[in-house]
């Protein structure tokens, strides 16, 4: 019983550390998780990620804005850095690797970094190409790593058209790859017109979409397992 209570307390502390963007508290609680022999995976998903989901809600409600979101992300990473080495490779039923970057001409990477964080959390292998990435590089990297997902980001109207080229090129060379695009000027219409599989409107929606994508991947995996039985 005592162990259960301790576990509950630690999850709550991890969650609050993320919501209150308290890096030190996140580190301290993560170390305790390891000390008491709690499952690191449980701590990440039901502590840190649960906190980040609340952050997403606060962002949506316009109680939090991007600076708060970035500080919460720092707290999440502070905990994740300690916990991650103790997690067995997550098998989400897909290969779990993603190529991500901001397209050439665009040097904004906050939205991209937040999506990247969610993939890090989910145990994906992330090939982060950074920002201002030459368009050919996305295709090259996808082919090199055989990643399942390519995420393209652009913050400006003046750079987003580069995405279409990357999508066309990827589709020709590898029809099975999933493509997600995001950034302020992008719309659902554009995503559909250009043939992307997913679309995230802004940092907030990118976060939500990334969470949704991970949940739906988890669901796929559960369904696949259910069919096996």
């Amino acid at each position, binding site marked *: 019983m005592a162990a259960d209570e301790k576990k509950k307390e630690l999850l709550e502390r991890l969650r609050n550390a993320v919501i209150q963007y308290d890096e030190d508290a996140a580190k301290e609680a993560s170390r305790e998780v390891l000390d008491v022999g709690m499952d690191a995976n449980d701590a990440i998903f039901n502590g840190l990620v649960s906190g980040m989901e609340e952050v997403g809600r606060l962002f949506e409600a316009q109680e939090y804005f991007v*600076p708060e979101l970035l500080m919460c992300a720092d707290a999440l990473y502070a905990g994740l850095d300690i916990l991650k080495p103790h997690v067995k490779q997550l098998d989400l039923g897909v290969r779990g690797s993603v190529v991500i970057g901001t397209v050439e001409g665009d*040097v904004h990477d906050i939205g991209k970094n937040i999506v990247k964080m969610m993939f890090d959390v989910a145990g994906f292998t992330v090939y982060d190409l950074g920002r201002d990435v030459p368009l050919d590089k996305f295709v090259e990297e996808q082919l090199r790593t055989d990643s399942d997902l390519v995420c393209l980001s652009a913050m400006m109207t*003046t750079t987003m058209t580069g995405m279409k080229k990357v999508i066309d090129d990827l589709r020709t060379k590898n029809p099975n790859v999933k493509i997600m695009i995001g950034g302020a000027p992008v719309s659902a219409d554009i995503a559909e017109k250009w043939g992307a599989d997913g679309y995230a409107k802004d940092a907030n929606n990118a976060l939500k979409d990334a969470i949704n994508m991970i949940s739906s991947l988890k669901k796929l995996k559960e369904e696949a397992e259910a069919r096996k039985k």
Partner: protein
Amino acid sequence: MSITTMTAKERIMKLFAGEEVDRPPCFSGMGNVTTEGLKSLGYKFAASHLDAKMMADAASTTYKLFGFECGVVPFDLCVEAEALGCEINVYAHSEDLLYPTIKKKLIHKEDEMEISLPSGFQEKGRIPLVCEAIGLMKKDIGGDVPIGTYVLGPFTLAGQIMELNDLLKLSFKKPDKVGKLLALLADAIVMVAGQFQKAGIDYITVREMGATSDVLSPRVFKNLIQPYLKKIFDRLTVPSVLHICGKTNDIVPFMMETGAKAISVDQKNDVAESRKKLGKDALIFGNYDPYNVLVAGTPEMVKETMKKCMDDGVSAVWPGCDIWPTVPAENIRTMMDEVKKYRR
């Protein structure tokens, strides 16, 4: 003089002066060079950022080919940062339409934030080149249309010379430190604007898109950023516009309080509501989507959008951002026709 013979320039200058005009003008304070225009001159986009004559020629074509009611230089957002000492990339090698970006930042960590302006700052980088382009355009089309330019707002400029990630977090954790940097950048911006004013511009737009409510809370905007915008608008001598894109309905009163003659908002603003909030005399410029409507939309969609902007009560029909160069000629002509025949 009869009202129907108003030139675009008269119409826009009267509008800024608070006088009555026959119809909303259709112009912009941001980049509006088109691929059609570049093609008509045989110019490459990448080259137009580095040559005053090419810049002026290219900028003038949007008026000459389509009757767009202004001439605006430059086309990119790196002029001030470059003059402050950042290295820029114009993608000279690329065949694609790429706007110059900052290659190397000036401030890499928090303790490097106490910078000072380089001596002779107002003559650095491409500031003289843009001034020359303004002069050339003024001679060429300045009798018919107003000549405009833009500068960045202090927060947006700060986001160019240092990591935006750090700037955003520090604006929360250490607002005093950020405030000090913004004060210096506000001075720098006034100096750049002063050069452009001397070169003969008719109006100027201050682009503070980094401080949109998509990113920062209205409270941080009011406390940390608005004071420095006020300092800038206090010291500008030509009619001025404050542009902020994204969700702006909560901050339009703060935008107006900066002392800008007009505010510019994009398609995410509910202009009918802003109009109610700010009253009938406030100059609100906006608010069509320059990509999804003007470039990717059908002429029918362009018509509907222009009508909606004017029905909602914009004082000038004006894009939410730079116009993406590949705009089809038919769409831009449709836009001009729709605005010209509109009567309130």
